[in-house]
């Protein structure tokens, strides 16, 4: 590398540059906190009716590792359908979504070698909570209404 740049200069660029861009990142994060509240549907989380259910749904979502097969808003595993918009895909009807989940977790063995969802031992109350959680995620306002199609 050129002789003009000394090791000390390179080191200072490293420290100074990293610090500057980290602070910039923190500033952008601060701004993001202010801006996401417009579309993140946090109101639902505070809602006396469904807030508790959504929280429970998120917990069940996590404690069963649903993300290990599915994506949620494009993040997760690529083995099973996107669920960030499953509420919309199934016709924006909460009862259809509940019935779909119940159908999947009660599906008997078919003998056909297709991808399967495990038969999670979930109560009706837990399924309701999961459905409310998925409905909440589907209502989060994403840029350009991602995903591009309702197929996810």
């Amino acid at each position, binding site marked *: *590398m050129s002789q003009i*740049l*000394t*090791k000390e200069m*390179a*080191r200072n*660029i*490293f420290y100074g*540059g*990293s610090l500057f*861009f980290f602070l*910039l*990142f923190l500033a*952008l994060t601060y*701004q*993001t906190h202010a*801006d*996401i509240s417009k*579309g*993140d549907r*946090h109101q639902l989380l505070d809602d006396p009716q469904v807030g508790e259910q*959504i*929280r429970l749904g*998120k917990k069940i*979502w*996590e*404690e*069963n*590792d649903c*993300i*290990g*097969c599915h*994506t949620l*808003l*494009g*993040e*997760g*595993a*690529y*083995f*099973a*359908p*996107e669920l960030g918009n499953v509420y919309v895909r199934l016709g924006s009807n909460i009862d259809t979504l509940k019935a779909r989940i119940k159908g999947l977790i009660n599906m008997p063995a078919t003998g056909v070698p*297709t*991808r*399967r969802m*495990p*038969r*999670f031992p979930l109560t009706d109350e837990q399924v309701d909570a999961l459905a409310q959680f998925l409905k909440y*995620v589907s209502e*989060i306002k*994403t*840029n*350009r209404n*991602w*995903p*591009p*199609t309702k*197929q*996810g």
Partner: protein
Amino acid sequence: MKYKSQAVAKPYFIAAIALFVAQILFGLIMGLQYVVGDFLFPEIPFNVARMVHTNALIVWLLMAFMGAAYYLIPEESETELAMPWLATLMFWIFLIAAGLTVAGYLLVPYAELAKMTMNDLLPTMGREFLEQPTVTKLGIVVVALAFLANIGITILKGRKTAVSLVLLIGLLGLAVFFLFSFYLPDNVVLDKYYWWWVVHLWVEGVWELILGAILAFVLIRVTGVDREVIEKWLYVIIAMTLITGIVGTGHHYYWIGTPEYWQWWGSIFSAMEPIPFFMMTVFAFNMVNKRRRNHPNKAATLWALGTAVMAFLGAGVWGFLHTLAPVNYYTHGTQITAAHGHMAFYGAYVMISLTIISYAMPLLRGREAANPARSQVLEMWSFWLMTVSMVFITLFLTGAGILQVYLQRYSDNPMPFLAVQEKISLFYWLREITGVVFLIGLILYVASFFVGQRDPEKAVEAAPAEA
């Protein structure tokens, strides 16, 4: 081996390789489940295999990084490790914790594991890559603190080189950003936002410092090029890494409910992230061309050059491929992501780990400089088998991804997810077959440790002048 205490690195390297084998076996299970959906169902559901595959990967890379630090810090600092006993103790704690966690994944349903480990007290489970029970996460923090104290004190009492400082900063950052795995807000947008502070700021931030430092160390040793030159390169590379990579986190904030301006910040900064990877390639080849000696460890040199090339391809090229917001709109969360994830992880972090293992293991096993020729030949075969298969795995996944994007997201009549998966299953079969070749390469790699250890060895020789 110049310092006795460097020996603590050896169990770390051995455990790393063992977990690597486990990772690949579970990768192959998943690869088969992609095409034969009910394979091992319900005994090992896909998500469980995936947890084992990715967590084994992360744990073995951490083991390799720690082994690397325990090996190179005494040499750089020109002093014995401060507390070798602590390093050995932490090794066993880490190994047992990892073993119990994997046993937990495989033996009980995940929800049961969450209950058994009292996830309720401090919920952190159930997110991609961060599936470990909270107690395991706490264990990782303890191990990391003890480790950092150990090498930190060693550096303080000895010579302070750029290589060891950069390594230390990288490892400190690794520990600090891991703390975000304990933050789990109810708000899904914020949850995702800070999840990337672990994942992205690791692989495209602080881990690159670790990568750069290990690469610099090995290049100093095998090429004999002046330390001043190599350390200047190191600083320039990691400066570019953090200057582009921190704000580059924005390439994950396009479609998760975060504001639109992230499409600009993310696209512009992450588009520059390939630069440090490119510099790393130029750097490695330059140093090897300017070498002052011909080190008999040809395999280690090959791994070092391989890292530089494959990291650039996997992270730089395949990363750039889908990093601009208008492209990512279509590719987000598809097999394109998986293609990139595989080649980047392999090219950067798997290969740098195998580089330092290749360099250090012969010395740790009491040899003067390198493994015998027979062993090196086998190791170089394994290099080519694994690396070429990873290139093909990436190409097949990219093919699958392009078709998936077209059929599911772009064509006039978008097809449902599972119907698309059915249509592109040929690519998954090819990926699986290539995965078997990868496994063969890995078996040869393991075998290379057992070959010709009694053969006599060649010494380091000066390079012919003007070489």
